[in-house]
């Protein structure tokens, strides 16, 4: 015998290596977390919902300070907010309303056609200087490309700047007047916002230039010497006569423009300059608000008001009074648009477009109003001025509001006000049903706003009843669903089961015997999802009125989405024991499965579905009815054949079931067998070979636990076959060396417990592993070394008289007892080892890709050999050889080399 394995006493080794242990009172991880949380609480107060360990404490502190500042609304912050809003508004205006490429223009905008040349004005009489030139009357509309139009306006704007810089301010003003006149043309509705944005940009620019010029005049005299420096809050009396005169002149020049709309716009552009003349521009503001009334065109006047509100910020004038007037005026202007002469309202496409164009300005103005109102602390007062809540005192419904205005007001109202005024708001929505905005959406908005705030349950019940009434007036399911969707959360939060039942009743009544459209499906989906997310447990949802019936109404993607949520919810709270629930979820899963194409499409959604179904199968628990459970698994295998992920779950479940049966007693051994059979049959359909291996091993373990040696032998053999077939399935590229090595190591450690088969030869399995490894193309040298070392270690272990561990089933006899004192057994192990050693050296020499890898492999092998075998001449020769290889590759100073050298006692 050339080799002899070292003798090992595992128990003694275990005890000597054991670290001294002592009991601790606190869990090391939980304790730190608790103390940290406490720390955090002291810093940020009690409203802490989560703790982010990455967030530093001092950061929290500064954040806190910022929040305190935010609480008080200052005029500056309001102005800043609105400036930001203005920027985004401009973006919205240009993006939201796309224009067909060619636009026809009425002759008003013939400046665009004529180009930017300024006729020599010096000799013209006063009238023409002020821009009241006669517009030539041409009936034929001209066509122009949109890009050309914009380019022309930009060209004009450049003309204005260059004229200004050249000191020719008169030309600059004249061009500005011409550009501003473009806003008089509303013939192409959807192009108006774009024109508005470019023209107001130009006007802002002009306004800034005039402001700077007058400021310059106020601060410096003719020679350029400094007179005074104006502070931000200067008074009109600080301004020298000269500057005031220039300023007044500008207003005169602008005031001499005949046409109303350009005159207003131009005055608004230089509006901030009023500060040079008067301290309280209130009169100016009031006059401008009234002047806009003279613009009869609805769209033009609304956009003009929008610009006015914007310029008021520049003036630094924050006062809700003028905004209230503005909004009242808007309401008056809209009134005739909404109701036609015939007295009833209908909506044409043109009007629809008109209203959609009006939305952004109205939104901006109401936003501004409520921001200012909040800053003045007078939101309620503003609402009263606007006539809110009047309906309550007067029984008649005289003051109905324009719904588009109502919508945006409601959108911006502070939520506490929405909940305290909810009844009034509801009445107002009821009264205002015009074509400017959908009443349904207003009902919805009210619901959504009410959900935001903490609502008082007192009036809520009557409110909801009224909403029900209002919603039932709409005959179609879609409208009903859309309204009620917004109130579902409210019903749930306030535990209004009675209403909830009524709602579900209504849905079923309205939807019965109907095919639901896509929109209806979506609304219904939203309602159901709200229900689902409100309840913790599926058991609470199922008993709801008609719930299953409503589920059956759904189809398509909405159904799938609802089903996903149902599954998620069902599997969220641990085991599913209730058989009806299981049945429901099974059906749900089946529906989901049928709706998804698992084979051809692999995306995140599918993965999610697969995951949910697998999780559901995993969570099902039939308790004592184990056979029923196994049947269920079989059903699942059949039903969800296309989900590979599920197969793994099935195998695991059936294994778990087997173990459970084993624990319950011996009488179930046949059941265990059927479980094992189920697993064995199922494994081959799992997708990846690596998973096969793992599952085979797992199942073999279960079989071993059950004392079913033939089963476990078979399963181990299957695993080894699997190893052999590996090369056929995947190329070497897809190999994961580490997980493969760990699977083989696991196999080896399992083999410690498996009794050898004397008929087939004890080391048969070992040999087949070695041959599978060595003959295969997939095994990289590194993997080979790892596997071969594991075999050596296994052989060494099997050689011992006492095995380190054995099967939990006492009926299984380990190899140590089975082959006790059998010399041929040990001989076989040694000869096998000899074979392995040869392969090992070969494998190391094969490694050519990296010197370092090769050195490490040599050392690994060397250590393995020296720990497994007793050092005789041949062994030490072998070790030395490996050591030399390693030293050649790594160099003498490598730490692994040094420690190996020490252990070898070289």
């Amino acid at each position, binding site marked *: 015998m050339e080799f002899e394995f070292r003798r090992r006493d595992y128990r003694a080794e275990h005890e000597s290596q054991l670290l001294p242990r002592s009991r601790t009172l606190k869990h090391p991880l939980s304790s730190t977390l608790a103390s940290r949380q406490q720390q955090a609480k002291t810093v940020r107060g009690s409203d802490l919902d989560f703790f982010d360990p990455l967030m530093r404490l001092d950061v929290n502190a500064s954040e806190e300070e910022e929040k305190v500042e935010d609480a008080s609304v200052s005029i500056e912050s309001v102005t800043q907010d609105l400036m930001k809003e203005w920027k985004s508004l401009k973006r919205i205006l240009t993006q939201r309303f796309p224009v067909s490429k060619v636009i026809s223009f009425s002759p008003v905008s013939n400046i665009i056609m004529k180009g930017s040349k300024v006729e020599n004005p010096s000799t013209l009489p*006063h*009238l023409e200087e002020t821009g009241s030139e006669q517009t030539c009357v041409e009936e034929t509309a001209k066509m122009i490309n949109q890009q050309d139009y914009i380019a022309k306006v930009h060209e004009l704007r450049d003309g204005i700047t260059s004229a200004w810089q050249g000191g020719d301010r008169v030309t600059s003003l004249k061009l500005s007047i011409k550009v501003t006149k473009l806003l008089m043309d509303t013939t192409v509705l959807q192009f108006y916002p774009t024109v508005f944005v470019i023209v107001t940009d130009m006007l802002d620019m002009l306004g800034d230039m005039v402001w700077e010029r007058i400021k310059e005049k106020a601060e410096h005299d003719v020679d350029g010497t400094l007179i005074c420096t104006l502070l931000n809050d200067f008074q009109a009396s600080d301004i020298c006569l000269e500057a005031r005169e220039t300023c007044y002149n500008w*207003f*005169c020049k602008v005031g001499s423009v*005949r046409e*109303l709309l350009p005159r207003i716009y131009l005055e608004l552009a230089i509006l901030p300059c009023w500060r040079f003349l008067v301290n309280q521009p209130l009169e100016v503001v009031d006059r401008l608000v009234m002047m806009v*009334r003279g613009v009869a065109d609805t769209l033009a006047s609304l956009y003009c008001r929008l610009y006015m509100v914007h310029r008021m910020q520049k003036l630094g004038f924050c006062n809700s009074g003028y905004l209230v007037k503005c909004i009242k005026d808007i309401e008056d202007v809209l009134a005739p648009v909404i109701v036609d002469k015939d007295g009833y309202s209908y909506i044409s496409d043109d009007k629809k477009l008109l209203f959609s164009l009006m939305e952004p300005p109205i939104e901006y103005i109401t936003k501004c109003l409520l921001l200012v109102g909040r800053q003045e602390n007078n939101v309620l007062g503003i609402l009263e001025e606007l006539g809110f809540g009047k309906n309550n005192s007067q029984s008649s419904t005289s003051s109905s509001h324009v719904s588009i205005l109502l919508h945006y007001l409601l959108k911006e109202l502070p939520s506490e006000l929405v909940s305290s005024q909810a009844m009034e708001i509801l009445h107002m929505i009821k009264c205002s049903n015009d074509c400017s905005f959908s009443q349904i959406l207003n009902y919805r908005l009210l619901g959504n706003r009410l959900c935001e705030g903490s609502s008082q349950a007192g009036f809520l019940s009557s409110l909801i009843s009224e909403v029900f009434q209002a919603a039932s007036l709409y005959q179609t399911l879609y409208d009903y669903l859309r309204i009620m969707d917004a109130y579902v959360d409210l019903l749930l939060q306030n535990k209004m089961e009675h209403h909830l039942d009524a709602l579900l009743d209504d849905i079923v009544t309205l939807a019965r015997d109907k095919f639901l459209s896509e929109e209806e499906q979506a609304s219904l989906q939203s309602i159901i999802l709200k229900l689902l997310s409100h309840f913790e447990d599926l058991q609470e949802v199922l008993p709801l009125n008609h719930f299953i019936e409503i589920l059956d109404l759904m189809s398509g993607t909405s159904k799938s989405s609802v089903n996903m949520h149902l599954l998620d919810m069902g599997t969220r709270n641990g085991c599913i024991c209730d058989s009806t629930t299981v049945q429901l979820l099974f059906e749900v899963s089946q529906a989901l499965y049928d709706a998804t194409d698992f084979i051809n499409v692999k995306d995140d959604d599918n993965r999610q579905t697969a995951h949910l179904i697998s999780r559901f199968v995993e969570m099902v628990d039939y308790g004592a009815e184990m056979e029923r459970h196994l049947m269920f698994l079989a059903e699942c295998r059949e039903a969800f054949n296309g989900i590979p992920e599920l197969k793994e779950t099935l195998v695991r479940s059936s294994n778990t079931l087997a173990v459970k049966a084993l624990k319950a007693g011996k009488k179930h051994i046949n059941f265990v067998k059927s479980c094992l059979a189920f697993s064995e049959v199922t494994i081959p359909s799992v997708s990846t070979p690596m998973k096969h291996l793992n599952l085979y091993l797992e199942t073999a373990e279960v079989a071993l636990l059950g004392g079913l040696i033939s089963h476990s032998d078979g399963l181990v053999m299957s695993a080894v076959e699997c190893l052999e077939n590996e090369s056929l399935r995947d190329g070497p590229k897809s190999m994961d060396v580490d997980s493969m090595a760990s699977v083989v190591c696991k196999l080896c450690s399992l083999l410690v417990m498996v009794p050898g088969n004397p008929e087939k030869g004890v080391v048969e399995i070992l040999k087949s592993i070695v041959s599978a490894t060595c003959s295969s193309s997939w095994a990289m040298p590194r993997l080979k070394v790892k596997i071969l070392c594991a075999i050596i270690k296994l052989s060494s272990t099997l050689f011992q008289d006492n095995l380190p561990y054995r099967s939990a089933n006492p009926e299984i006899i380990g190899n140590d007892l089975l082959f006790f004192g059998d010399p041929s057994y040990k001989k076989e192990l040694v000869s096998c080892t000899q074979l392995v050693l040869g392969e090992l050296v070969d494998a190391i020499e094969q490694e050519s890709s990296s010197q370092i890898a090769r050195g490490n492999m040599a050392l690994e092998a060397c250590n393995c050999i020296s720990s497994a075998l007793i050092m005789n001449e041949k062994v030490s020769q072998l070790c030395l050889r490996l050591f030399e290889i390693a030293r050649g590759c790594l160099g003498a100073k490598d730490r692994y080399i040094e420690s190996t050298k020490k252990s070898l006692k070289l």
Partner: protein
Amino acid sequence: MATTVNVKLSRSNRIYRSYEPVEGKIVIKSPTSISHQGIRLSVNGSVNLQVRGGSAGVIESFYGVIKPIHIVKKTIEVRSSGKFASGTTEIPFSVNLKEDGEPIAEKFYETFHGTNINIQYLLTADIPRGYLYKPLSATMEFIIESGRVDLPERPIPPEMVIFYITQDTQRHPLLPEIKAGGFRVTGKIATQCSLEDPLSGELTVEASSVPITSIDIHLLRVESIIVGERIVTETSLIQSTQIADGDVCRNMTLPIYVLLPRLLMCPSVFAGPFSVEFKVCITITFKSNLAKGQPKSDPTAPRLWMALERLPLELVRTKRDQFSC
């Protein structure tokens, strides 16, 4: 570079009262040194009257210019003969328009530039340089505003008139649909107004069956000149201001707000040989196909599709207060 002469006034707005000295400097820029025979500065204020077109008859228009009325004419020598060095020379001056005790021919009317009447004050610097050289000269207009001590203070008491414009108040024929459908526009407007304040008022469209296309406020000046035995009156448009564009909402108050243009307007004057008065004309234009074909020669002329209301407007000069310009 040629030699240039400029008259620069001490005030950038060039406005002076009659009792104030007109101050400034004569700026001479010359590349070489030049000799001169003294610098004379003359002040010339006059009312220039002429008759052309308008209500003037054929005979009168032959006369053309009527003899101007001199208000002030005086010449002072700013510097006696001498020499300027090359470069820029500035010679300050100060002229009293009215010496105490000096008799003046006419009242110092405020500067006004009209169609037939021009009240103008000029400052001329003359630099004769002997026979061989061209004399140098420069002229600058300055503006006279009344500086009487008894001027009213701002704001002057509002004298508003209430007006009603309906189909029945119109003296010219209207389109039958306008006449039949009827309309009613009411409001108020100031009839006396300070030159420093905007013309203000209100206007409300109470009813109109035919849609309105525009409402405008026109400022008119009425210049009258006595030519021989008769008075020639010319009414001309100074400025139009639109206050309603399109068919505005009914019963909504619109502001009337017109900033008075400078120089083109002055306090209403009733002098012996001439007078300058002002009027406001409110026009309401109704929607009509007829309107499209017509050239807009005179926006205040009565038309079938327009309603008019003419109101007198007295303009007064007020004392300059702290905030006026």
